[in-house]
């Protein structure tokens, strides 16, 4: 299904883009990570256990179910304050 994918901070720089639209057979955030890793061979950064997923502006667990049209943002660990 079609998904909007966003990358932030170190991930954005590593991917070379802030946003892309992908058509991926991914039912959850975790599966989308696996699909992106396979596509780009970027295992270590996307698979990092601290990388968080925000779906449609809500921070969700990696096993959160995705639906067509979702915006999925990948976030390195937060470092504000």
């Amino acid at each position, binding site marked *: 299904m079609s998904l909007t994918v966003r990358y*932030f*901070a170190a991930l954005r*720089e590593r991917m070379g883009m802030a946003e892309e639209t992908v058509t991926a057979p991914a039912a959850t955030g975790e599966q989308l990570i696996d699909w992106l890793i396979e596509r780009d061979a970027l295992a270590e950064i996307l698979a990092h256990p601290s990388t968080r997923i925000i779906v449609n502006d809500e*921070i969700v667990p990696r096993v959160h179910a995705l639906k067509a049209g979702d915006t999925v*943002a990948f976030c*390195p*660990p*937060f470092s*504000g*304050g």
Partner: protein
Amino acid sequence: MSVTVRVQTARFDAGALLNALSGRDSDCGAVASFSGQVRGGHGLLALELEHYPGVTETALERIARHAVGRWDLRQATIIHRTGRMEIGEEIVFVGATAPHRRAALDAVSFMIDVLKTQAPFWKKEYDEQGERWVEARASDDEAAARWLTQTEDMPA
């Protein structure tokens, strides 16, 4: 009972924010605050802060509202800057007012600890060697974990 949350590039005046919190509620004897500034040393030249527009503000609002409900607060304020900041410039201000001091002090500790791990901000350091994204620190996770149960990732 009021919550004030702002994400902004403009500088702010921590003293003015503190005075805005003080003395507004006559049944409110305690005001606590924390402010964070860009710390020099190790050749640092500047910081740049990135956030997730919309999502970050919502996260800060949840944190502040959670604090107001968990302690008996009258006001909770979180102001966080983004963009480029020089050494000595303010990054974040967190403040709380309450009838009792322990509530105000604990709420401020809670808000800054939880903000560090639960609000989407990313910090990049610039020095003479170049630039690098700041890694999250295990000590920050531990500080936030003091306040959160295992099942509760983001205070709602």
